[in-house]
């Protein structure tokens, strides 16, 4: 059980002009950030319950808050995982998804089991410099996700073994 009240309260506190404009002392700003973080943690349970209800299955959902610096332990370590993308807009959108991975080849399937074009690109040196010890992904998986209005799409990702090098046979 959880409630979005915690985030709503944090947002209420953050209506103060110092929070809106960033003119508070550092320790006060740290407190605003902590309140928002705790609120978002509580809302992750709310979102998980909502998604479970919509999907009809209770799953162990993961929220990767550091995707902007290519950090997500779930995708970096897993060979198979699902990606759910929720679209809060009242029209369908296509969103490019970037997920940190360590493999070189992945098969991505859409909601109806159809193959989705994807590719793996290297993580930039700039990102590696920024993230320090937070993550070690060498690459990012990129694919376009089509998501319906006010709804979600589920994509499944599977790591594919790179084809073995054909070594040939010796002929006498």
């Amino acid at each position, binding site marked *: 059980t959880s409630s979005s009240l915690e985030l709503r309260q944090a947002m209420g506190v953050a209506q103060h002009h110092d929070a809106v404009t960033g003119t508070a002392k550092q320790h006060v700003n740290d407190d605003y950030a902590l309140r928002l973080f705790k609120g978002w943690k509580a809302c992750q349970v709310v979102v998980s319950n909502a998604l479970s209800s919509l999907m009809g299955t209770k799953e162990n959902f993961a929220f990767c808050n550091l995707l902007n610096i290519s950090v997500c332990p779930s995708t970096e370590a897993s060979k198979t995982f699902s*990606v759910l993308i929720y679209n809060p807009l009242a029209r369908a959108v296509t969103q490019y998804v970037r997920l940190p991975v360590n493999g070189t080849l992945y098969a991505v399937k859409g909601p109806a089991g159809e193959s989705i074009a994807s590719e793996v690109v290297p993580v930039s040196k700039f990102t590696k410099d920024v993230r320090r010890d937070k993550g070690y992904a060498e690459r990012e998986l990129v694919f376009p996700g089509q998501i319906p209005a006010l709804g979600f799409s589920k994509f499944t990702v599977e790591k594919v073994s790179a084809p073995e090098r054909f070594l040939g046979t010796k002929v006498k």
Partner: protein
Amino acid sequence: KNPTSIENKFYRVTFDPDTGLISNIQNLEKQISLPVNQSYYWYNASSGNEDSSQTSGAYIFRPNQSEPISISQNVRSYLVKNSLVQEVYQNFSAWCSQVVRLYSDQKYLELEWTVGPIPRRDSNGKEVISRFDTNLQTDGLFYTDANGRQILQRRRNSRDTWAFKQTEPVAGNYYPVNSRIFIKDKNIQLTVLTDRSQGGSSIVDGSMELMVHRRLLYDDFRGVGEALLEPGQYMEGLVVRGKHLLVLDTPEASANVHRKLALQQYLSPQIVLSTGQGAPYGKG
């Protein structure tokens, strides 16, 4: 060698082979071509002068001169070219870099910037901007949004409702940019969408700038009682990463593109991951 261009169905971005900076953006659908020089600069924060003791701080933006200092006029860059995405990585300095990105079927150019930790060993407060210089004849006008709602026309060194005497040629022309800023002439409009609220302006005709990060050494005596130093987790200053989305189109067609795109930025799709082995679940 620096990469010279990237393109998709809708845009072609050309880079100066000598400097590595963006030199031209083309909308291939509309056959619009605009020479654009985009780079990063920093304003040296004022610590007070003869005119006023006012320092630059959390409340106050006050550079000590009107011309910003270039972080680098030559960037080291490299290209990653694939079928879904093409990216040019530009390194301006040890604390400023950018990825110029074109996805295969999207009608905008993405600039993902990473700025920080801003150094302070030289004892200068720094207010870092991304600036787009074009040849558009803008007649002192530029446009910013008001809290993501209506677009307001801004006129340099002017206010609509009183006789205004400009005393701060840079700071006095800065306005809040909550979602977008643009400049235009009769035929071309260059729009930049932000992923967060920033300050922005057009200090000279054809130019547009957005402040992406700042780190200051003095309190501005407006009540906060601290310098805006933000040491961050590692006590060396914050690293900030964000995105600017660029739209180049006709003035007539631009609104249709930037309004949809801004909404998609603000209410962006949310990603949730799972291992995919769930037990049946019902509300009951």
